[in-house]
């Protein structure tokens, strides 16, 4: 596609990168077909191709972001379904990331929007604060009905209260920086991204991961100094905080990789995995470029690593139908589509795939709080498709989706089911039902 940047603009490495991406796009329109917001809203402006056009115009003009651009870019889930569909290989992820940074730098949001975003970025990446916030939400929940029905701020608050779990689980000991020794002969050594929000909402995921890996002979390190991957602030366009989080992780994992060595950095929250695998790009113009690229190359989703290890169950599976919910960050962001289903089948479960499995459930990081209406419609659509395969349990590889889809059918992390069949306890989510 034709672009209009002058030589001066192209000296900015971010513009140069986006120019290359835009020139790859041939405006064929295939991406519109698999974009969740285009399906719901039926407007070119809420499709990837329309957003690419808006972003192109904003970057070419060099003008501050306008309310119109912000509205349509904000509605993008960053599910990256368009990247799976795009025959030309347009890197929409890097383009929309650039747009989000430009918006954060040039557009002043209304006060309630700024306040909401501030609250999210203060609370979510720090487990202690997140726990406090969830306890606060429990106290505030009875007041949700008092919130006005109209107005974005009120709708977002209500969405937040509804998403908060009824009970906040106790913190788990496994996430503290430490080394979990392999059981039997050591076959490998990995760092686990202990994460931020996930360990507060569902500590059993890291527990199952560590139990299963150590049982399979892998030493698991929760590295000192590693924390939130930076995805949350990165997707808000907040460049500096995102880079700071990423930098801390790179340093923490490098110490391990250069010390006792690492075979992989294992990630069991696919939203984070997509970002860690992109550290190489995020730091391409920084002094740590090579280190970041090395960390990205080591990053593996838990399903990739278990496949590599040759996961095998040790007990017969109960006759359960597992609906596999493909998290977008896994299927589109990391292009991992086969491994999780194959592992669940290897574990002995009947695996069912719902219709429209390529369409986002609406979770998308903080999207279900910031865009509650669209997120709610996508959730209902996803739950209907899942219910149609009559599952006993839904398995997903991303905590965001798990929270979004919680309802009548239990939702567990894929690794919880795999751990169960390899000798671990029955997932708590299943026992409740």
């Amino acid at each position, binding site marked *: 596609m034709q672009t209009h940047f002058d030589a001066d603009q192209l000296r900015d490495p971010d513009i140069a990168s986006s120019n290359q991406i835009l020139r790859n796009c041939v405006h064929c*329109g*295939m991406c519109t077909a698999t974009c969740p917001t285009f399906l719901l809203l039926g*407007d070119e402006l809420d499709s990837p191709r329309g957003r690419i056009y808006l972003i192109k*115009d904003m970057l070419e003009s060099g003008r501050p972001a306008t309310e119109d651009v912000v509205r349509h870019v904000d509605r993008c889930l960053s599910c990256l379904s368009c990247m799976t569909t795009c*025959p030309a290989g347009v890197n929409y992820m890097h383009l929309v990331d650039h747009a989000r940074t430009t918006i954060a730098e040039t557009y002043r949001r209304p006060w309630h929007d700024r306040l909401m975003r501030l609250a999210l970025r203060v609370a979510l990446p720090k487990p202690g604060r997140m726990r406090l916030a969830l306890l606060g939400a429990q106290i505030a929940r009875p007041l949700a009905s008092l919130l006005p029905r109209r107005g974005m701020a009120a709708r977002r608050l209500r969405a937040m209260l509804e998403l908060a779990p009824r009970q906040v689980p106790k913190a788990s000991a496994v996430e503290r920086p430490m080394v979990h020794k392999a059981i039997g002969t050591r076959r490998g050594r990995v760092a686990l991204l202990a994460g931020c929000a996930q360990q507060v909402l569902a500590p059993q995921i890291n527990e199952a991961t560590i139990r299963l890996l150590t049982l399979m002979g892998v030493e698991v390190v929760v590295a000192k100094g590693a924390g939130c991957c930076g995805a949350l602030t990165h997707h808000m366009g907040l460049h500096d905080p995102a880079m700071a989080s990423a930098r801390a992780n790179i340093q923490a994992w490098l110490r391990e990789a250069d010390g006792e060595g690492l075979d992989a950095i294992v990630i069991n929250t696919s939203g984070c995995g997509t970002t860690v695998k992109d550290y190489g790009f995020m730091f391409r113009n920084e002094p740590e470029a090579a280190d970041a690229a090395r960390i990205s190359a080591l990053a593996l989703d838990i399903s990739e690593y278990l496949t590599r290890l040759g996961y095998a169950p040790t007990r017969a599976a109960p006759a359960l139908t597992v609906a596999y919910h493909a998290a977008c960050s896994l299927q589109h962001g990391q292009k991992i589509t086969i491994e999780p289903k194959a592992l669940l089948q290897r574990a002995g479960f009947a695996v069912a795939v719902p219709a429209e499995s390529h369409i986002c459930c609406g979770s998308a990081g903080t999207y279900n709080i910031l865009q509650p209406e669209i997120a709610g419609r996508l959730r209902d659509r996803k739950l209907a498709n899942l219910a149609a395969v009559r599952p006993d349990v839904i398995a997903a590889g991303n905590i965001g989706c798990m929270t979004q889809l919680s309802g009548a059918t239990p939702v567990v992390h894929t690794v919880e089911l795999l751990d169960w069949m390899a000798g671990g306890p029955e997932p708590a989510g299943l026992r409740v039902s």
Partner: protein
Amino acid sequence: MIVQHAPKADILARREQILAGLRRILPETGVIGEALRLKPYETDGLAAYRQPPLAVALPETTEQVAAVMAFCHAEGVRVVPRGAGTSLSGGALPMEDAVVLGLMRMNRILEIDYADRLAVVQAGVTNIGITNAVHERGFFYAPDPSSQLACMIGGNVMMNSGGAHCLRYGVTANNLLGLKVVTVDGQILEIGGAHCDAAGLDWLGLITGSEGQLVLATEVTVRILRSPEGQRAMLAAFDGTEVAGQCVDAIISSGIIPVALEFMDRPCIHACEAFAHAGYPMDAEAMLIIEVEGSVAEQDELLGRIKDICRRFKPLSLKVSGSAEESAAIWKGRKGAFGAVGRISPDYLCMDGTIPTSRLPEVLRRIGEMSAACGLGVANVFHAGDGNLHPLIMFDANDPVSFHKAETLGADILKLCVEVGGCLTGEHGVGVEKRDLMNVQFTEPELDQQRRIKSAFDPAWLLNPSKVFPLKLPPEALEAARHSAVPMAAE
């Protein structure tokens, strides 16, 4: 560059009133009027031509479409219909004083009747959406344009779209039973229906492929077919494009009609393999995708006969797909071919000429010569069995000289198609892209007769103007416009 009719000054002056009128008919989100938000609607799948419209209207029902049409008719406002915006001939290119009427919100399946094998859908349902709605019951909708994932049935009807499997099943016209249409002054008409052929004039035949010149289609009744017992694709690789063309001719002239017979040359094979990982032969200069269907025994028998023919042309390899996944990847690559060319060239013009299959080897050779002479690469991917060529002329839109060369080469290729007994377009429509070549194909009396039919439906020429019919301009004005970098206006 392209010439459009001059915008009407009074319409531009009444922009705000027209927007207000549209907002009385449609909900707030259904009308777009801000300059910045109109920009993404300035073009379609032919991004070389761009012109932001006056406004965009996004109705959700036939009644809303009719109300918008009646309003625009009363105000003398031009209307440009739009589906998914995937047209490769600029069929949805707006005009400065026109309202773009987008049908993408009309995306509901209204009725499926398995007993009578038909489906009634709104115009904004995607082509693949029809098959997706019926495939679990063992049915499908046959025409399959390569953009079927995104393109919408309303646009398919207006362009009479084809596709890879039309060799066996025919194009849109052959799979269409009825339409609900809205006339330029906002009347709703039903044409055809759940039966073959109707009494009186063949309106359905007239409207199919009319490129939005006569009426707007809002609901479409299509034939759905029983899915075949099974199907298998085969890849035949050759060390030259001409010899692959000879093989196509030999297969067709032997009387065998495969379900699909597709051609790709080396640049396309490489671009598509990078996207689809389908196991295409990377050492080949040309490749044929040949699909057969039926029972396993029927497939084996047909594939055997086709292989025998292929062997006469010394193929580098013959490979039959071993699984449904492999076949899916083979088709994913083929159907993503146009976009995939974005990997090897920033821009392309996609041609759509159709020729007798017996002339394939000669035409491929001459396209190669023309490409070499003008210094622009051409990637070939097309429906070989139908003789429907899609040379993709690769150019750089950031370089005006390159674009001008591409336009000239495109025109020369299409003239060649007409010269060997073919035509300008197989399935993409004339749009703006081939408009000025129409008098290569038709005489002036023939074009005038077509214009009279347009006038009968749309006396004031408000529907999708500046397309299909060459503008009646002095030759020097046309020539000046060709060298212009921006769309030019002329009356």
